[in-house]
């Protein structure tokens, strides 16, 4: 229920229903021109009407009739052919905000969205407008990554909740800070990894590579820096925290790159007090280099280092912020900038960290080069980003190409985003992210129905996602009480057995025994040239069933990479030496294609050539080893009271790709049975006195002291509000009961059985036949058949 001011509350308590409204089109106030308006919002649920549950999405619709003003008719001002100066306020796609209130109190948000269409009838003074809410922003194509990592580790790589969050992010609806540089533009900053950790390790940019054991972590919304965080609850043997890693979206080069790594942590949640971000560099052979930033809230230190497998590494330690780090428990944001630019083949990294404390205090270190001789990095490419944390963590990002460490405002993403979405606890763990099609809204609706969740954009434009857990417990207190004495104009109650579901089946796709195998292998047909500082982009067909892969590694002459790889040399000739640390490799997947972009960071001309003079680009795709097995989870209690009174009633949930876990399937089946075991009264549409505070999902108390002697709680699953030109407002609620009227007792009743008792014996007995026909001759004389004699008909 929306909060309201005291004036509104007093007016509603007094039965005041004089409605006021404010309407803006394109930010222009047209309230005085509104002839009538109507707002409708309801869940598009597939569940039977009398079940104590609902799921699906809700897209609100707003209809408006507008008159003219200033001596001009409404069609003259707002028709499709009206002057742009006035008509653009009502053009399709224009913003619409509508607020309504009662009794002179402050108006409450009623609708926020964009216009869908306008209709102007010439000769009248009315233009009809209709608008849809923020769901309109989710009309873009739904796209989700499909990493192979879950099948490799046989561990969840994401959840359905993560998928919803990612679809929202694609539409600019954020629950946490967005990636700093999501779109690729040559020579511009680029987000290499953006892992929200909102219920999954999958990433739109980058790809998960190492997944932790699910027994070592959980997800939480309580105490999360923004929306949801990974919380360690166990430490692997020999580890300092839970470890996870990602391939970057582009394997950028060293020397030559500037990298910024950051993450939010909550020091009050977790098993320890340290977190570390590592950037692993792939050198020639099996040698590696590592750049890292580590925070230790017990020691009160921030350590930034550069290490490798050949020469001594070096670290810088900042300990002057230790007092604040030890004293302030809560959400910290930390990161470090690594400047790897150099003209030669080696670089002494210049590093500096930045932190933001829970109280908003900023701490930044000076740009400090590694001490000569220590921490040197040589020609290599960024191979992996690793996070090791013993504290709650959210929003890991690695960005390349920033000219300098972000300022305090940039670091905090100030002005770069607004929180416009709230999620719920993550549900439906996924080893493979299902393929999606259609719009983002359609994909979200599909997930909502599969998971018994609801998706909606509320009156303020905030997206809200709620799980089936919302009806796992029966509410005990209402948000609002409606009585037939004053609030309810009409009420009809029905009850039907079709809503009873006491044998619930939830199918799921079992991927637990599915591995990954190589798909098609792409071997380039030509040796290709990459101009100095230029780029080469090649695209290959990529089957839909093939899973996402990371950028190829850059081969050298000491180790041959067996998976996706390429090798470059400075000569178009066999035997030319391999060049490392010279080419950024960026990979992305488009409709039916995998696109590889190789960017030369040197002044030399490079060729994609193997040591023996053949084309070197090689892409190895991966795909599931076989189809998953479809299994079922059943929720059923033999001999239950529900079965005794209503019989065995089956509900078979639709099989889809979103349920991949027996535990999750069992939870859904149990929730379904708990909601459908006893039919709840259907209240239909209830006309009530207008209350602008009511929202979808609210619990209202329905009291009918005069008619049905009803006093129960119900969820609001639909609201329709209509205001006419006379100022009168009608509000109709669609309700779902939160509980049944108890278990039947059938006291004093002796229900009749399903089959009628056998009728009295009407057939002739031996005695009656022998009485009627004393002798056989008499019987034969009657000339009756056996049936006529037996049934005593006609004989």
């Amino acid at each position, binding site marked *: 229920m929306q909060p309201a001011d005291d004036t509104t509350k007093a007016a509603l308590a007094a039965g005041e229903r004089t409605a006021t409204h404010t309407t803006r089109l394109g930010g222009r106030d047209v309230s005085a021109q509104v002839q009538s308006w109507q707002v409708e919002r309801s869940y598009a649920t597939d569940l039977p009407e009398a079940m104590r549950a609902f799921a699906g999405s809700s897209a609100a619709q707003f209809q408006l009739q507008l008159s003219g003003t200033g001596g001009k008719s409404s069609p003259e001002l707002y028709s499709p052919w009206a002057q742009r100066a006035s008509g653009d306020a009502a053009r399709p796609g224009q913003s619409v905000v509508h607020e309504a209130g009662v009794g002179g109190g402050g108006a409450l948000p009623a609708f926020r969205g964009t216009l869908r269409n306008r209709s102007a009838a010439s000769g009248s003074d009315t233009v009809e407008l209709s608008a849809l809410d923020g769901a309109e922003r989710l009309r873009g194509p739904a796209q989700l990554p499909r990493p192979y990592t879950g099948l490799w580790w046989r561990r969840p790589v994401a959840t359905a909740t993560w998928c919803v969050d990612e679809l929202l992010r694609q539409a600019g609806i954020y629950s946490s800070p967005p990636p700093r540089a999501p779109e690729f533009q040559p*020579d511009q900053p680029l987000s290499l990894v953006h892992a929200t950790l909102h219920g999954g390790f999958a990433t739109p940019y980058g790809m998960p590579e190492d997944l932790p054991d699910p027994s070592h972590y959980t997800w939480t919304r309580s105490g999360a820096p923004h929306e949801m965080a990974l919380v360690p609850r166990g430490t692997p043997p020999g580890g300092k925290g839970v470890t996870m890693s990602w391939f970057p979206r582009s394997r950028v080069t060293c020397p030559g790159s500037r990298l910024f790594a950051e993450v939010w942590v909550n020091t009050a949640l977790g098993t320890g007090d340290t977190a570390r971000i590592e950037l692993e560099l792939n050198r020639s052979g099996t040698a590696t280099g590592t750049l890292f930033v580590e925070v230790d809230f017990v020691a009160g230190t921030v350590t930034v280092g550069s290490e490798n497998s050949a020469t001594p*590494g070096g670290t810088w*330690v900042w300990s002057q912020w230790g007092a604040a780090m030890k004293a302030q428990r809560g959400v910290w944001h930390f990161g470090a900038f690594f400047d790897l630019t150099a003209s030669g083949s080696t670089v002494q990294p210049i590093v500096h960290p930045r932190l933001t404390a829970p109280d908003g205090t900023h701490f930044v270190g000076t740009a400090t080069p590694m001490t000569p001789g220590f921490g040197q990095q040589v020609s290599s490419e960024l191979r992996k980003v690793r996070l090791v944390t013993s504290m709650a963590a959210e929003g890991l990002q690695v960005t390349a190409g920033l000219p300098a460490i972000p300022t305090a405002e940039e670091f905090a993403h100030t002005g770069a985003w607004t929180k416009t979405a709230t999620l719920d606890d993550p549900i439906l763990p996924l080893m493979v992210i299902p393929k999606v099609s259609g719009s983002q809204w359609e994909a979200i609706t599909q997930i909502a129905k599969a998971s018994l969740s609801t998706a909606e954009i509320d009156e303020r434009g905030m997206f809200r996602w709620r799980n089936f857990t919302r009806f796992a417990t029966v509410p005990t207190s209402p948000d609002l009480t409606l009585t037939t004495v004053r609030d309810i104009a009409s009420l009809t109650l029905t009850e039907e057995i079709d809503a009873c579901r006491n044998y619930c089946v939830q199918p799921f796709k079992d991927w637990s025994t599915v591995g990954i195998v190589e798909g098609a*292998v792409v071997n380039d047909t030509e040796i290709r040239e990459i101009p100095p500082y230029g*780029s080469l982009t090649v695209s290959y067909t990529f089957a839909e069933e093939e899973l996402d892969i990371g950028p190829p590694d850059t081969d050298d002459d000491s180790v041959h*990479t067996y998976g996706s790889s390429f090798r470059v040399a400075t000569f178009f000739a066999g035997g030319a030496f391999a060049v490392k640390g010279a080419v950024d490799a960026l990979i992305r997947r488009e409709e039916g294609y995998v696109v590889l972009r190789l960017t030369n960071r040197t002044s030399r001309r490079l060729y994609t050539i193997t040591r023996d003079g053949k084309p070197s680009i090689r892409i190895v795709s991966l795909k599931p080893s076989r189809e998953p097995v479809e299994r079922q989870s059943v929720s059923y209690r033999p001999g239950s009271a529900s079965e005794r009174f209503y019989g065995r009633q089956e509900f078979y949930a639709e099989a889809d790709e979103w349920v991949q876990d027996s535990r999750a399937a069992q939870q859904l089946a149990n929730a379904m049975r708990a909601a459908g075991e006893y039919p709840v009264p259907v209240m239909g549409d209830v006309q009530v006195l207008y209350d602008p505070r009511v929202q979808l999902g609210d619990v209202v108390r329905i009291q009918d002291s005069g008619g049905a002697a009803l006093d129960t709680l119900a969820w609001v699953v639909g609201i329709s509000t209509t205001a006419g030109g006379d100022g009168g407002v009608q509000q109709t609620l669609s309700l779902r009961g939160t509980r049944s009227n108890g278990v039947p007792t059938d006291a004093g009743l002796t229900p009749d059985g399903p089959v009628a008792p056998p009728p009295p014996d009407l057939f002739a007995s031996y005695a009656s036949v022998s009485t009627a026909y004393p002798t056989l001759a008499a019987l034969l004389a009657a000339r009756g058949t056996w049936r006529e004699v037996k049934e005593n008909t006609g004989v």
Partner: protein
Amino acid sequence: MSEQRSTAPEYPDRGHSTPMTVVVEPGTPPPPVTPAQPEPGAAEPTASTVTPPYGTEIPKEGEPV
């Protein structure tokens, strides 16, 4: 473990694939970056440490279940 670092034997050669599109773009040297001015209040590190080179093998992160 990754598809890039598989220890499996080399994949069999399945023939060659012609790209659907090939685009070559020339480039220019990146402009020199002006060093950022030190931020007021930026703190110098208070200590440094030296770590020995670690092994030459890529660290293993455990085996899949």
